[in-house]
């Protein structure tokens, strides 16, 4: 699984960072910063799904 993050769609809701702090940090203005490049470790796949399923802007998508 890979995370595709659309920086232009992110407006800083901060939902991904709350639900998946190991996958998403936030910068000083509150915008999401993805922490994992490439394949998501298996034990973080559920967290990645939560981040995607709770982003109000649909800025996070998952690719198999």
């Amino acid at each position, binding site marked *: 699984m890979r995370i595709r993050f659309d920086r232009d769609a992110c407006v*800083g809701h901060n939902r991904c960072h709350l639900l998946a702090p190991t996958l998403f940090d936030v910068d*000083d203005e*509150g915008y999401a910063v993805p922490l994992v490049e490439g394949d998501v470790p298996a034990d973080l796949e559920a967290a990645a799904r939560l981040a995607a399923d709770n982003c*109000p802007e*649909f800025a996070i998508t998952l690719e198999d």
Partner: protein
Amino acid sequence: MSPATPERPVQDWATDFDHTTQAWADRAPEIWRDLRGRCPVAHSDRFGGTWLPTRHEDVAAIAHDTEHYTSRSVIVSDLRPDVPAPVGFAPPITSDPPFHEFARRLLLPAFAPRAIAPLEEPTRQFCATLIDDLLAERSGVVDAATGYAQHIPVRVIAHLLGVPEADGDRFRTFIHRILERPGQAGEVDPEDLLTTYLFRAIEDHRAHPREDLISYLVELDVDGSPLSDEHVVGTIALLLIAGIDTTWSAIGASIWHLAQHPEDHRRLREEPELITFAVEEFLRLYAPVTMARIVSSDTEIGGCPVHEGDWVLLSFPAANRDPEAFEDPERFVIDRQRNRHAAFGLGIHRCLGSNLARMELRVAIEEWVRRVPAFELADPAAVRWSTGQVRGPRTLPVRLLGDDS
């Protein structure tokens, strides 16, 4: 209080809705559901012509469309302010691109998660003190809206801005005038105006600088010049108005829910880690804030033509209950796993204070649940919901059962 215009009864919510009436406040979720089923883009001639979309898809499309809609005014009233866009009365909420981004970026760092985290412990202590007082009430019946929820954001915002917390009652007067009866207050003594109050606060901060948001804004240097007083006053007015009733409403509505759902209250006591999901579900189901836009050039909403100058109510609360966007939307699911709620808006105007508001709501509920083992509505008929664009219980008598202190 100034005399207010008496309410004109609404005949049909699809063609004559009025969100400032008590009849609306008493049953808004029911009205949204009814409209979504038979007339998903409702209209009213009131306020000079206002639209009300209730589908998530339409609300999201408008929130993302800054080409056909202006944020020049975000509170529907009989007056359409002629403050020139793109700055507006209270930047950045009343600003349009490109000025909007400039005004917003000045504030973003002050409201990012890292800046909010240090406020959590003082907020928790304050909530604990409020609950001490409530538990000491011998009758066991307290008003959770005015005795608890209301005080929390007043304290936090006053601290953040750097204005006396003792002025809380004055803030509430300003806010009530602006939010609950917009444009209907009649003549107001200039001494009693929010802007007069804020110009004085600015002068005081210039004379006595300190570590708070007003000093930060007053001292800002933008390419060699300070922000205009109008910009600073507008922004502070925004933070005061947007930061208090909204959070008060969310905390109150969440407690109202728990009072009637002891099973959810119990689960939060037994599984405190559920709070992360529960907070978002409270925000979804009881989203307090409806924004507004003015159509800036003719367009359509879900196939319905709208014209320049029309108001549009941007009902995030209605969008949050759309079955097309949420499974079983009228039900509170404490650990809802897919929850793309729009309680904090969508697009470039996403609530600047969302991290602060979320922290306040979480801490307020955590402390309530931890200290109050069981409670119920003392008089369901006495609960009164606010009118206007910020929805929450303004009177919420609850009976505290048992003591856990």
